[in-house]
């Protein structure tokens, strides 16, 4: 009972809660709007395999995931057969739409992958109506290879060249999670003879930072491995924070693995520059203001099943044999970082301020012809 009748129940609900008010619904109420994974039978095998591989957690890096998806499309185009009496380009358009809606339900799409699918759709529609299915599949495979090369691999090496020049001797660089472009930048800076140190930040439950650590140590870079709860202790010694990205929204908000916003917030409090390495194919026309509208929930059971390292017996969760209707386990995959925390984007078109995202989109991608 509240002391103020008007503050009760429905009348005063300033912010909606995480628990459902009734016991019929399950899951986290605040994220009830997210798409649920459904079983779809009539989908090309390459995409079912892709879904399985993504869910097993083997592919976690955004560029890797995008290339993996494009390879699945390659398989799809190679085995493409005309099944309706439409023109091949129109038939393909329908099928691509079907695949797209399947991929949306699997929760594996990020902003870069959406751009790639958009690119394929536009290119399919460009073919003349009288083209044979054989030619179209050959041409599409060609187009996919070009995309991988020109939009993912080449930009990544351009970024690492720009980024490695920004790194100075005796820098202390804080990185988070695992991003191939960031690792590439750091390794290139090392090969230029720069002398710097890296603080690798990691967080439960995914612990992908260990991959970064392995890659950097292999390149003989000195690393300190910490968890996200200790970032505030180490932030004073940091000179630069370099992060990767899953994508950047049109309103300059950064979409990345959960925890990025936390690190940027702490870096901002200590007045440390935050640099984000991002290929322009990851820039999106969409806009987003918070981490609730779009997100992916990982299963809550990993909270209790994941230990800090393989074979760890020391840190045990006391929740492993505990279940209660009053206890939810919320495991987010992404979060959104406001542009006020980001000082610079390093892209293949150069180092730009974060506010230039819409400009880059307009200049390098027109409506009629993507790219």
């Amino acid at each position, binding site marked *: *009972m*509240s002391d*103020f009748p008007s*503050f*009760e*129940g429905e009348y*005063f609900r*300033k*912010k909606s*809660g*995480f*628990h459902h008010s009734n016991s019929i619904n399950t899951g986290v109420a*605040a994220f009830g709007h997210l798409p649920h994974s459904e079983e779809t039978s009539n989908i090309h095998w390459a995409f079912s395999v892709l879904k399985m591989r993504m869910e097993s957690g083997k592919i976690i890096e955004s560029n890797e995931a995008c290339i993996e998806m494009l390879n699945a499309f390659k398989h799809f185009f190679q085995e493409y057969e005309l099944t309706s009496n439409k023109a091949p380009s129109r038939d393909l358009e329908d099928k691509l739409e079907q695949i797209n809606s399947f991929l949306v339900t699997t929760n594996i799409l990020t902003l870069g992958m959406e751009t790639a699918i958009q690119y394929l759709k536009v290119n399919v529609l460009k073919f003349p109506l009288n083209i044979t299915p054989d030619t179209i599949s050959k041409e599409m495979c060609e187009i996919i290879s070009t995309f991988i090369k020109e939009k993912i691999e080449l930009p990544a090496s351009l970024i690492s060249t720009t980024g490695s020049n920004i790194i100075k001797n005796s820098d202390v660089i804080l990185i988070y999670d695992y991003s191939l472009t960031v690792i590439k930048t750091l390794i290139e800076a090392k090969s230029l003879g720069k002398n710097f140190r890296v603080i690798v930040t*990691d967080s*439960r439950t995914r612990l992908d930072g*260990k991959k970064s650590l392995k890659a950097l*140590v292999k390149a*003989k870079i000195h*690393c*300190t*491995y*910490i*968890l*996200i*709860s*200790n*970032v*505030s*202790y*180490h932030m*004073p010694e940091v000179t630069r924070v370099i992060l990767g990205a899953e994508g950047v929204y049109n309103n300059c908000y950064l979409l990345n693995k*959960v*925890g990025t*916003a*936390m690190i940027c*917030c*702490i870096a901002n*409090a200590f007045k440390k520059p935050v640099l984000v390495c991002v290929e322009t194919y990851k820039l999106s026309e969409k806009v987003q203001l*918070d981490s*609730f509208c779009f997100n992916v929930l990982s299963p809550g059971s990993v*909270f*209790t099943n994941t230990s*800090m*390292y*393989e*074979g*760890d017996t*020391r*840190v045990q969760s*006391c*929740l492993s044999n505990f279940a*209660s209707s*009053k*206890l*939810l*386990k*919320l*495991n*987010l995959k992404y*979060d959104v970082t406001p542009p006020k925390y980001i000082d610079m984007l390093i892209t293949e078109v150069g180092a730009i301020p974060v506010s230039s995202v819409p400009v880059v989109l307009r200049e390098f991608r027109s409506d009629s012809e993507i790219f």
Partner: protein
Amino acid sequence: MEHLIPNFKDFLRSLKRGNNTGNHELCCRTCKFLLSLIKQFRLNSVHDVPILISTISLFGQLSSDILPLEISVVNIVRRVLHIIREEAEHRNIDISSENQRITTLTGFFRESETYSSTVDLIDLRETIKTEVKNLMEELETHKHNISDQASTHIFSNEIIMTYGYSSTVLEFLCSAKSVGRNFEVLVGESAPLLTGHQMCKELAAKNIATTLITDSAVYALMSRVNKVIIGTRALMANGGLLTEAGKYGVCLAAQAHCVPVLVTCGLFKLSPLYPFDQDTFNEFLSPNTIADRPESHEVEFINYSVPAFDYIPPELISLYITDVGGKMCSYLYRLLSEYYSIEDYNLYS
């Protein structure tokens, strides 16, 4: 006095070994130990009172050497010293040491006071014992006094975030639940020790709607949170907190979203020390809490770092909920002079 040192050391080491019982428990045991010390002390003349004070000071010095991070244990010693000083002053007993600091301007010009040499020493000892027993009682009831205020701070349908395990916060939330407030709690799990899991378990057992979140999701979810309530290990003279690592980030995220941060803590945790960075009071946990042993060729390139504590500056805290009511950080210095004598701020002088 020197003959007591091994005794003191033994006791303090036993405290150190039983470190996982929480610092409230340690404070209670220290208080009991000091009470028995006062009981056994030979108080034959008024000249023995300064000796009692220096004996307890010595104990305080040893405890800050042996348990440098159990700041509240040393606070208890300071509290007991303050009690003895107050009572002695009340009875006009000369307790001034030669290097005593003059704390007021009038102290310079004060005529040398006439100290009485005939006092009822039995009464003195009894009063001190009663006061120390009161202190013990305060230690035992402080959580209750704090949680009594819960209904004025938590309203219906609130979303409250907390981080890691704190028995004071737990009792505070349970008290709000017991007066019929319906609210939800988000608990940061506080890796690598996962104390947040224990917190979740106990909250859910009390029928409070609880959601366990990762440390990394704190910023992402902060926009839905109405209040952050955390416990602390020590409260510094400037209002800063010495807490488990990770709470600094939580407070910064709360500030970024204009969410108030409440700190529940007993006043025995208020310490006259001033840290101003993360290193003044800290320790490192074993790296095997976060990682397996690296392979031999990797060893020279990897450092594992697990600091146990965070120092949180007072600007990030909105309110301190203590056993004597809610306080602002600008008022804490005043409470210091109420509970401690200025001579005891630095026990080594």
